[in-house]
């Protein structure tokens, strides 16, 4: 019989539910961080998961058992601490990995003060240290072992379980056994309930073992596991869970959600309001700004009427950026080298080291190209290249400094793959590489190479490329350092529609954490040129639907760009009515040298006509999407 694949968070409070499963021959058990547990369930790598409820809301369409991790009152392991009243805290340091606790903390802060302080994510130890070091105004959200009894040491502290109880009169549910609909069959239920019976009876032993291993007080661990935490989710817990979902959805922190027992297992329960909600109602909610779960997004993506979807995307787009404006940037794509150590099958551009056609651009050629950019009114260069095995970090630093000294251009350079390559080559942490490049002039990191941020897909199409977590990790670090970046999605290889939604959700979660993404672009995989052009290899309607659903899911992105380079100007223009507010960049012909200015102006003129004809004002922008004035250079005469 196929093993039941179970994923669970690896904390002490979960031990009574998960530890006995390790000995069950019918179970394939994984214990890890909440994000990985959620990913496994979402991407069908786990059948059932002990899942934080924020993740359950984000995935959507799940069912649960009446077993989980909850607290009736004081929880002790999730606390807000500060040296002054929380009302006057301007910055909150927090461990962003526990999204449920972060949402709970945000709700508490919103209830107390009506607004959120600046949130800065860091490890629990650093967060505690930050409260002590800073001059004042800094609080910390501390989760897990470091939080136990921490409250006693601060003049201002809030136990979030206790505060929730005080505010709502209800218990708080942190996690529950959850699965996609239909997966909680009799066998799964029997396995999980059986394990809980064994595990709940062994709470003292787990607490003592854990205390010994971590060097904590056994008494405290025992009382934590026996008293602070409850594992059975009854009617009160269900009410607490529903209240949490409702409050979080109202504050637009989570998708509207319910997490109920399977219907067959609980015939007496009233059917939940959300089950089988009309797709059009979902679209209208999204248009009004409601956060979408993966499950709801997928339903809309698959089933919504094209015009409903487009109108909703248009409504969101109008709220997120200037409603009547479409922006574009005058920049140039410069490939500094075509030498590359990876050999992706689909790539026709790169050459191995030593190949006679391999090149690294010289300063003279750089100078010429950049002078042309400046002459044409360009404000940025996009610098990308192969993974050259001999270009050291100093080469990039020198180049960046030189560019910044000689030219006033934004530097949108080195995709995550290239950053990781430099880090490996230099045996330096990604953070150090980014810090050094940032100091040398890097402004923002292009979002290329994201493809689909689902590793099953990535392994299939580009084995040598970085994993989803590595890609996201580079962006997280870049954002923490104050760099901005764009995000992309290339679909239409071996990805499914739910993979695309998973990709969007991952971007949204990182954006929640950092706010560092400027814009999102998507396109379908482009077959190599020279083959007969088929009528939309994946369908132009699918492109429009994909861009529109991205606009709805990415509710924390300011900008979505249309991909006219891949879809053609006509579709690029139409896409402005399917959620896009940016036209990307002017196509700067690489091979046109002497008449480069002319080429650009023609293209800028054409872009402006396309945008205006779609009913928008057209505005040039810089790399951070700040609006710029019109081009001052006169149009050339006889440009044809």
């Amino acid at each position, binding site marked *: 019989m196929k093993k039941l694949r179970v994923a669970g968070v690896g904390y002490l409070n979960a031990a009574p539910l998960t530890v006995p499963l390790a000995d069950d021959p019918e179970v394939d058990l994984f214990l890890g961080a909440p994000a990985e547990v959620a990913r496994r369930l979402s991407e069908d790598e786990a059948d059932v998961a002990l899942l934080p409820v924020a993740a359950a809301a984000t995935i959507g369409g799940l069912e649960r058992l009446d077993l989980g991790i909850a607290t009736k009152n004081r929880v002790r392991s999730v606390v807000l601490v500060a040296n002054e009243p929380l009302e006057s805290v301007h910055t909150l340091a927090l461990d962003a990995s526990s999204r449920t606790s972060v949402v709970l903390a945000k709700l508490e802060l919103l209830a107390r003060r009506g607004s959120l302080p600046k949130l800065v994510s860091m490890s629990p130890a650093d967060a505690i240290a930050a409260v002590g070091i800073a001059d004042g105004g800094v609080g910390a959200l501390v989760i897990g072992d470091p939080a136990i009894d921490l409250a006693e040491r601060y003049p201002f502290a809030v136990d979030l379980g206790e505060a929730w109880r005080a505010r709502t009169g209800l218990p708080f549910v942190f996690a529950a056994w959850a699965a996609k609909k239909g997966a909680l069959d009799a066998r799964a239920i029997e396995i999980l309930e059986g394990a809980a019976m064994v595990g709940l009876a062994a709470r003292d032993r787990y607490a003592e073992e854990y205390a010994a291993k971590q060097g904590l007080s056994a008494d405290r661990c025992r009382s934590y596991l026996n008293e602070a935490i409850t594992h059975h989710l009854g009617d009160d817990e269900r009410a607490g869970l529903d209240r949490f979902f409702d409050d979080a959805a109202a504050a637009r922190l989570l998708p509207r959600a319910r997490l109920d027992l399977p219907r067959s297992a609980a015939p007496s329960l009233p059917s939940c309001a959300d089950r089988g909600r009309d797709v059009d109602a979902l679209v209208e909610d999204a248009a009004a700004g409601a956060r979408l779960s993966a499950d709801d997004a997928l339903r809309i993506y698959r089933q919504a009427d094209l*015009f409903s979807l487009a109108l909703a995307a248009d409504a969101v787009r109008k709220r997120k950026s200037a409603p009547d404006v479409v922006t574009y940037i005058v920049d140039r794509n410069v490939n500094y080298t075509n030498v590359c150590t990876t050999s992706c099958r689909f790539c026709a551009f790169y050459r191995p080291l030593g190949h006679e056609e391999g090149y690294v651009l010289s300063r003279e050629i750089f100078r010429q190209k950049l002078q042309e950019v400046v002459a044409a009114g360009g404000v940025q260069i996009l610098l990308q290249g192969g993974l050259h095995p001999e270009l050291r970090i100093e080469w990039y630093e020198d180049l960046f400094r030189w560019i910044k000294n000689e030219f006033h251009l934004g530097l949108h350079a080195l995709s995550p793959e290239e950053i990781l390559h430099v880090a490996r080559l230099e045996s330096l942490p990604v953070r150090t590489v980014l810090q050094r490049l940032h100091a040398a002039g890097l402004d923002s990191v292009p979002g290329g190479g994201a493809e689909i941020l689902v590793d099953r897909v990535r392994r299939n199409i580009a084995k040598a490329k970085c994993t989803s977590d590595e890609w996201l990790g580079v962006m997280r670090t870049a954002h923490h350092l104050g760099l901005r970046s764009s995000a992309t999605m290339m679909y239409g290889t071996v990805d499914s529609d739910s993979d695309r939604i998973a990709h969007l959700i991952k971007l949204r979660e990182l954006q929640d954490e950092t706010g560092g993404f400027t814009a999102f672009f998507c396109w379908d995989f482009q077959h190599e040129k020279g083959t007969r052009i088929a009528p939309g290899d994946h369908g132009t309607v699918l492109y429009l639907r994909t861009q529109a659903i991205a606009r709805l899911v990415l509710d924390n992105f300011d900008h979505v760009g249309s991909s006219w380079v891949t879809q053609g100007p006509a579709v690029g223009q139409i896409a402005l009515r399917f959620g896009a507010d940016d036209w990307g960049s002017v196509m700067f012909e690489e091979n046109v040298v002497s008449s480069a200015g002319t080429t650009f102006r023609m293209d800028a003129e054409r872009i402006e006509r396309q945008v*205006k004809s*779609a*009913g928008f004002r057209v505005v040039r922008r810089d790399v951070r999407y700040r609006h710029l004035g019109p081009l001052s250079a006169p149009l050339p005469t006889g440009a044809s």
Partner: protein
Amino acid sequence: MTTFADIAAKVHAGIRLDEADGLALYEHPSLLELGALANEVREKRHGDRTFFNRNVRLEVTNVCVASCRFCSFAKLERGMPGVVVMTVDDARRALREKIAGIEPPTEVHVVNGLDPQLPFSYYEDLLRMLHDELPHAHRKCFTAVEIHWFSRHYSMPVRRVLERLADAGLQSLPGGGAEIFHPDVRKKICDDKATADEWLEVHRQAHALGLFTNATMLYGHVETYAHRVDHVLRLRALQDESIEQRRPARFQAFIPLAFHPAGNDMRELPGPTGVDDLRTLAVSRLLLDNVDHVKAYWVSSTPKVAQIGLSFGADDVDGTIVGETIYAAAGKQAPNVLAVDDLVRLIREAGRVPIERDTLYRVVREFPRAAPEGAFKVRERRQGKHLRVIALAARRDVDDPGGAPTGGVS
């Protein structure tokens, strides 16, 4: 002032739209609302059914006495570079070459320049040759401009021209040569060929003789939205007349043709944009309440835009179009030919059901509805769906500053 909501209400009540409505639709700032309304009409008429055919193009002479400024095809006189004039035997060989190795087409589409040196019998011979070569392919030949010119050049009444050609095998007329009917525009772009009335008279006579016809409109050059509305309403009036008079034939399809600027006298013009392509399809669908089909002609708009057009009022994508040379001369971006598989996929990717038709819209083959793998599933249609969409859209009207396009194409 007519509002969009007024017009939508008229459409829902089945009340015919007038000239002011047409203009208001062209100037309506929300492309999506316009598209949704046109889509509603299209789905009421055809559901998801979307038509295509297997057709072959033949152009036997590009010598032309007319001097249309938008044309990149005609070469005016014999002896000029690029002139192609085929004998009937040349045409037979060219036809055989075009269809070698492919499933026999169900339609042969022939349009030509106005070549003063060919005798009338040449065209009769040509039709007989087509019949010999492809007895089962419908012969849709000669635009109204050609028929009108035959009448002048060979000194025969239009009716006689049509009768003789029908005797030789002509079965229906393509819709070309209409351009923009309004004399102000015709004067600027095609001063020396059939006028609007002359073009319409040929179609009137054809309908009376039982020859079905199509109608086109060449847009995106020097005309205004008002000219486009006027054009479509003239077609609608003739269609009314043919229906009222119980003529044995009428217009089957309306085909907006996007002006392509390469290689002709009007190359300084930019040509229409994708949004304009969709807007034109949608307004045409809404105005032409008495013409069954509106075609998103993939050759002129590219397959990508044609696919989107199937949600903006169009229910037909034309056909495989083997051997097209006229748009090819004007710098089109579309490929030269699409296989049946390509067309079926193009239609399915739009969430529609492909139907292969013959020239008279009789079903040749039905293809099952099947969403391509990984694509969205076709939704279920419900009553009143678009009312909801319009309601959703209407709520935004107050805070929607997205300005109307600047009117017309100048």
